[in-house]
């Protein structure tokens, strides 16, 4: 049933209860957003290049146009989700102290949600009026 009794870990006692049914959610979302990020990032870079050298009024008008704003909203949503999962993996790999790890995992989520909220707010402001 299992290996030598003396190297049994607490995991062995948990295994009998089955999975939490959500183990691959982050794995799948990281790939989903990775695929989405490819066309969205290329589009965002093209948008940025077309805006170089323009003044604020012209930039605001283009960024607030429907197609550009929607592409950038999708870009922000997808990249922020992707970077939240990625940074959490880095934290879980290198931070072994339980309370420090939980604090950083929470701080990571707060950072990503806040940066996303700021970018989405700016895009909505550009779209619906200054």
């Amino acid at each position: 049933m299992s290996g030598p009794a003396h190297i049994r870990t607490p995991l062995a006692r948990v295994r009998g209860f089955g999975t939490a049914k959500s183990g691959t959610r982050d794995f799948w979302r990281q790939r989903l957003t990775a695929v989405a990020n490819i066309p969205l990032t290329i589009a965002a870079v093209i948008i940025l290049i077309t805006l170089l050298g323009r003044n604020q009024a012209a930039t605001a008008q283009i960024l607030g146009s429907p197609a550009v704003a929607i592409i950038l909203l999708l870009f922000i949503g997808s990249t922020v989700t992707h970077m939240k999962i990625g940074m959490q993996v880095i934290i879980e790999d290198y931070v072994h102290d339980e309370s420090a790890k939980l604090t950083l995992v929470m701080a990571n989520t707060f950072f990503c949600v806040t940066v996303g909220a700021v970018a989405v707010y700016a895009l909505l402001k550009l779209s619906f009026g200054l």
Partner: protein
Amino acid sequence: MADTRSLERRPPVERPLSPHLQIYKPTLTMMMSIVHRITGAALYFGTLLVAWWLLAAASPTGYGRFQWFASSWIGRLILFGYTWALIHHMLGGVRHLIWDTGRGFGPSEREWLAAANLIGSITITVLLWIFVLLTMGVG
């Protein structure tokens, strides 16, 4: 099974640990793996620039400050690094997606993919910046 209780009271045994990074000779695939993670972490903080750019564009008074930063030499350096990190991480991501299909693990394939990732990211970044600087007419 009857002796589970007494076994659990034993102190944890010393398990063998796998050797860490400094044991191995650096290889291209290893460096590309590390760089993928570093560029990802850099882009994480680089998103602050994207948020700042959008927020500044939405404010008639704030855009000048962003443009001043973006055209300063330190701003240019950061944006150049951000461009390379973005493209390198994207090409590295494509490599990972290829691996996810079960392909590209052969000895020559993985070396070729790692080299293509690095050469591709540097080439695209440099070409993109040459194009941008030429169209803007700025040296």
